[in-house]
C-alpha cells in the first residue's frame, strides 16, 4: 500500500511568489494534517482536516496560507505571497482515527521550501 506522498519534494521560489504544495494521504484515511519545521525549530502543527472539513486550523501562521481538501482526498497548501520566514520543511500526515493504535499518524517525506 502506498504511503503518504507529497509534491514537490523541493521548491525554490522568490519572495512574493506563490507556491502550492500537495499531499496525497493514504487511501481511506479521513484525517489529514499539515505541519512545518522552520530552520532550527521544532515541528509545528498547522491544521487538521477531517475529510474535507477543517477540524482545527489554529496553527496556521497567517492569512497568506490557505489549505484545501476538496472531496476529502488530496490536500493542497498554498502560500501567497511567500515570505523569507516561510522557508522550511512542510510535512503532511494522515490517519484513520480509529483502530488498535489511536490516531497513528503516517507522515510523508516532506516538501522543502526555500524562499529567496
Amino acid at each position, binding site marked *: 500500500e502506498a504511503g503518504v506522498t507529497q509534491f514537490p519534494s523541493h521548491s525554490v521560489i522568490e519572495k512574493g511568489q506563490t507556491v502550492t504544495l500537495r499531499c496525497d494521504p493514504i487511501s481511506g484515511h479521513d484525517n489529514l*494534517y499539515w505541519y512545518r519545521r522552520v530552520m532550527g525549530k*521544532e515541528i509545528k502543527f498547522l491544521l*487538521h482536516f477531517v475529510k474535507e472539513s477543517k477540524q482545527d486550523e489554529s496553527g496556521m501562521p497567517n492569512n497568506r496560507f490557505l489549505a484545501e481538501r476538496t472531496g476529502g482526498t488530496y490536500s493542497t497548501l498554498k502560500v501567497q505571497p511567500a515570505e523569507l520566514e516561510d522557508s522550511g520543511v512542510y510535512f503532511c500526515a494522515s490517519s484513520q482515527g480509529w483502530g488498535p493504535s489511536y490516531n*497513528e499518524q503516517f*507522515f510523508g517525506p516532506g516538501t522543502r521550501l526555500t524562499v529567496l
Partner: protein
Amino acid sequence: LAKTTQPISMDSYEGQEVNITCSHNNIATNDYITWYQQFPSQGPRFIIQGYKTKVTNEVASLFIPADRKSSTLSLPRVSLSDTAVYYCLVGDPRGGGFKTIFGAGTRLFVKA
C-alpha cells in the same frame, strides 16, 4: 495539551538497550502517550502508543508508571540504524484525531 520534557541527546553502542524517559507532569485523564522516530530528510514515524502500564510491540516497549507523569521508551539491542530523533507526544487521540505537538525530541546516536 500537556508539555513534555526529554533529554536533548543520548549516546549508545550497538547491542545495548536504550531507555529514553519523557516527563509530562500535566498529562490529562484522556491523554495517550505516543512516541515517534525521525530520520534525517524523512517524516516522523510512529513507534508506539500507550495509556498506562506497559505496551510492547516488535520495535519497542513503553513503560508508564501509575501516576502517568512520565514514560520510558525502551529500545532493545539498538543498531546503527536506530540513530534518529525520538519524540514523545501527549494528547487525546479519540474522536478521529488530535493535534500533535512535537517538542525538541531526543537525538539518539548509536555508535559501533
